[in-house]
């Protein structure tokens, strides 16, 4: 594994986390804390976790990137379905976010070593397990399917 591979994998994971933070922010606004309490709690917890992972990735990349290069930033906006007013719609989008996260962290595992890889293994596992909470089916190889 090379340093460019490592940076590339981390940048892709950061792009995925920017999207995740954005999307969960939107999903939170579409979810009722009273009538969809369980879903709301899951979305809120996911938002918090992805924000932490985004910040960690930024820190990692700041340490790795040569002077003059920056961690990728968020897009101005992200495509989402027009209708997000149901539990099924919110859960479906959340499953997509977690699947993308698992894939991104599987790539980070392959491109890194040491504590960063250990962290990525945990992030991959978290995404796989969190996806179950939104209705994903268990897989033989999360992040690699």
């Amino acid at each position, binding site marked *: *594994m090379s340093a460019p591979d490592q940076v590339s994998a981390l940048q*892709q994971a950061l*792009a*995925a986390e*920017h*999207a*995740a933070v*954005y*999307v*969960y*922010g*939107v999903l*939170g*606004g579409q979810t009722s*804390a009273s009538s969809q309490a369980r879903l*709301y709690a899951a979305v*809120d917890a996911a*938002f918090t976790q992805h*924000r932490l992972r985004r910040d960690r990735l930024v820190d990692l990349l700041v340490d790795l990137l040569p002077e003059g290069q920056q961690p990728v930033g968020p*897009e*101005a*906006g*992200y*495509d*989402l379905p027009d209708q997000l007013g149901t539990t099924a719609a919110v859960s479906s*989008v959340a499953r*997509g*976010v977690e*699947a*993308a996260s*698992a*894939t*991104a962290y*599987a*790539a980070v*595992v*392959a*491109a890194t070593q*040491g504590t960063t*890889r*250990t962290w*990525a*293994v*945990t992030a*991959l*596992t978290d*995404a*796989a*397990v969190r996806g*179950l*909470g939104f209705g994903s089916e*268990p*897989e*033989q*190889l*999360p*992040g*690699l*399917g």
Partner: protein
Amino acid sequence: MPPTPPLTSRRALVGAVSGLTLAVAAGCDVDDLRAPATASSTGPATTAPEPSEEADRALVDDVVAAIAGVRTQVAAATDPALSTLTTSLVSLHDAHLGMLSSDGSSTPSASATPPAPPDRAQVRRAESGLQGRLATAAGRAGNAELAQLLASMSAAVAQQVELLAGSVR
């Protein structure tokens, strides 16, 4: 709850929600990590495997033994309430053993004495322990693809542990 960011424009989810899910193929060939079992007596002198290759082979052997041990324990469960979960677990472990074995075999070695039927908590403990071992092995693997495969297997077992806890289904 976090504030909802404004949708100032609607652009594609760059490499995220839809794009990244199709990126990685699962085909890690563990045979690539294994040195030939025997050397030809008439051929050139054999080259000693790299230290990391030797370490990875030992790692795979340890992981295979751990999966096979837990698989045997889980397969001994007799509680009808666990049958769906244990069937899924045995199937998962067989699939993982097939991916890790040099010949694609998923048949675990026979246990000398059949284990006592485990209850739900014992199955969960065994699977949690296996999940931790797979995660640790992923961190130690010298080969990047092996690390990725072991990490993904760890995540798969973690999903089953979550199902055993009954918190998501």
